């Protein structure tokens, strides 16, 4: 029953997230967009940072997007559930351990963080073009 309930909880969270897909994309894309704008264009254009800086910040930007998306996908729903929305009660009263409920939420957080990383990568590719993006990923020189 634990496994069945676990997947039902994962399904539930993913369904809710899928319904707010554009809110999710917008939220996840905001951070890399601001970072690209500031560190990828403005500061290198002003000469404060070297032109190669966007390549160096690729890993950090994707990592940061994944981290923040993961936290947002896990901690924020839990905070809301335990404070003002008692929706989680139904899951906590299911015949499974509380750890299963927590693991389901963490699992969804992990999935969301990978999607977050993917969105950040797509944004970078769209902004800098595929060739430069490829150099960022592989670390190859011009």
């Amino acid at each position, binding site marked *: *029953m634990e496994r069945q*309930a676990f997947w*039902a909880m994962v399904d*539930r969270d993913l369904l809710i997230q899928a319904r707010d897909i554009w809110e999710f994309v917008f939220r996840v894309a905001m951070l890399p967009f601001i970072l690209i704008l500031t560190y990828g264009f403005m500061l290198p254009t002003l000469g404060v940072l070297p032109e190669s800086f966007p390549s160096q910040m690729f890993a950090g930007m994707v990592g940061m997007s994944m981290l923040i998306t993961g936290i947002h996908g896990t901690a924020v729903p839990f905070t809301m559930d335990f404070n003002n929305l008692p929706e989680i009660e*139904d899951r906590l*009263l299911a015949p*499974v*351990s509380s750890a299963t409920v927590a693991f389901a939420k963490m699992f969804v957080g992990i999935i969301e963080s990978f999607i977050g990383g993917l969105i950040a990568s797509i944004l970078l590719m769209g902004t800098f073009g595929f060739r430069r993006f490829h150099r960022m990923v592989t670390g190859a020189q011009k």
Partner: protein
Amino acid sequence: MKTAIPDSILEVKDLRKTYHKKGGSAEAVRGISFAVPRGEVYGFLGPNGAGKSTTISTLTTELEPTSGEIWLDGRSVTEDPVSARAEIGVVAQHNNLDRGLTARENLIFHARYFGMSRRNANRKADEYLEKFGLADRQNDYVRSYSGGMAQRLKIARAMMHTPKILFLDKPTTGLDPNYREILWCEMLTLSRESGTTIFLTTHCMEEPEKLAQHMTIVNHGKIVAQGTSSELKALVPTSTIVTLRLAHTEEGFVQKAEELPDVTRARLQNGTLAPYLDRRQPDFDELFRWTESLGTSVLDMNVKETTLDDVFVYLTGKGMNQDA
């Protein structure tokens, strides 16, 4: 495994719950024991703050009791709360429906949390949506539901896994009388069909008086009375309650009333004096003369049959709608 009393689904023995906080502790439940007969509607009554919600939270495994035993159908709830949850349905007082889901999805996900296959969950959701009159709004998000519809859906959801016992925490609060009637009719039919016992907590005495076969009245975390409606009413020395609204009142009136012959007890609340008379037919002339002798007059008088509310007032000296 414990050998249960054959006809009881739930047994509670010396249940205690103490909340520890800075500067001391508060004992919300003080050693209560009772047994709920199988297949009945059981009333668990008391004023706000009497310990009803804490008790229900421990019975539904939301809270761990400080001490005591809870047996559900012969299995210990305190030792194995996870297994016990499979046999329990809970309808909370507040709206805890999943607002991001439709009514149908609420039912299906609930069933899946309880280990039902998608196919069975869908079949049962169809059945319950129809029974609770929600079929035409099944694909609407529950955030668009009215209070009455949300309450119906909460009950349908709690029944999805066919629990052995359904805990209802003030299920009809905020609903109009017509809707209450419909809701109770649906709940009772469903519980009869599935053999589910209903454990009803409320501070409103009318519903358990009509529906519950057995009941327990609690106050300050302790049981003050247990029994059937008629057994509880028999605790009040009269079957007729007289209430007198007086032009002015003094604290001493209660003592003076209790000195009257045939009056076993009296209470004074919001300018209304209620002497509990030791006989069926009150002598109204005598009562009027007595109030005049107190230097006051009767503005309004009410004579009614004893209700559970009167039982509670008689036992605790407070009204059901007052805080414990």
